[in-house]
């Protein structure tokens, strides 16, 4: 009777550990989905921001990409984004892009994830970018089908490549 107490404690600890594991453990696919949700949140902008806040957001966005990464999005309302970009480039691009719009909303739909290799993930999704004008920015509401590649580096997933898929070819 006396010895049952430690046993109960051990069992309770094990049960708690198991519950914690199931709650907090994320598969690679879940990690990528959560990364995309973070990206959507970081790109979105609901109110005007000062330069310091904008720089902070731009850094957080840039930190989600590998250095360098490849972007191939030929048709954006802002300008063509095609080529290899360093994190510094992405930070500068995010800063100037955010300054043009009072509100930005990025919504992601139909995310599908494949793992051709253990440290590489191919992701297909539809992105909707909705931006309200400020200054010289033109308001827009555009949809893109994107083919992205994620790279696993030291346990974390980073965006290595983003390419717009041509759904309609003129």
């Amino acid at each position: 009777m006396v010895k049952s107490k430690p046993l109960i404690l051990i069992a309770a600890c094990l049960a708690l550990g198991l519950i914690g594991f199931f709650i907090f453990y994320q598969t690679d696919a879940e990690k990528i989905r959560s990364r995309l949700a973070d990206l959507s949140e970081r790109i979105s902008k609901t109110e005007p921001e000062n330069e310091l806040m904008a720089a902070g957001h731009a850094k957080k966005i840039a930190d989600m990409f590998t250095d360098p990464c490849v972007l191939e999005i030929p048709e954006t309302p802002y300008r063509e984004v095609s080529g290899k970009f360093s994190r510094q480039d992405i930070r500068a691009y995010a800063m100037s892009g955010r300054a043009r719009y009072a509100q930005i909303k990025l919504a992601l739909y139909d995310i599908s994830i494949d793992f051709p290799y253990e440290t590489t993930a191919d992701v297909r999704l539809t992105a909707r970018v909705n931006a309200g004008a400020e200054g010289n920015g033109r308001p827009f509401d555009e949809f893109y089908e994107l083919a992205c590649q994620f790279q696993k580096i030291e346990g974390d997933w980073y965006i290595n490549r983003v390419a717009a898929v041509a759904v309609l070819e003129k």
Partner: protein
Amino acid sequence: MLNQHIRNFLFPSVNRRFLIRAVLVAALAFILFKFILIPFRINGRSMAPTYADGALNFCNTLSYAFSPPERFDIVAVRLAGRSVMLLKRVVGLAGETVAFKNGRLYINGEQTQEPYVAVAYDWTLAPRRVKPEHVYVVGDNRRVPMGQHHFGQTPVNRIVGAPLW
């Protein structure tokens, strides 16, 4: 007697038969509206005046189950999935050449009448051949410059279905 029937219809007794029926109706509704008649809301004026911005409709996924899309059919083209689709009109079929001259549509070099177009901007696009297993789709709203309108050829397997009305 009639009152009893109405009461039974409006307030059925929750028994096993009722529960089975409710589950069946829910399952059928789920299958119908998830896979066969996908509800959607039109966002934008690409298909004006045929379809207004904000209108509600259903995408009938069985429309092209047994036959391919034909010229002037209105089709829903999927992007990465079915959450976002483009609503467009088929104007060119595989193997045909499509061109625009001063806002008028030319198929295989011949001008084609488009009664659904209200006002046409003076689009000019050199002739291009539609690839095999593709169709050429354009929106009905030609009031905008060509650069601001999404149109072009797309694989037939991207076509999810046609609007119900």
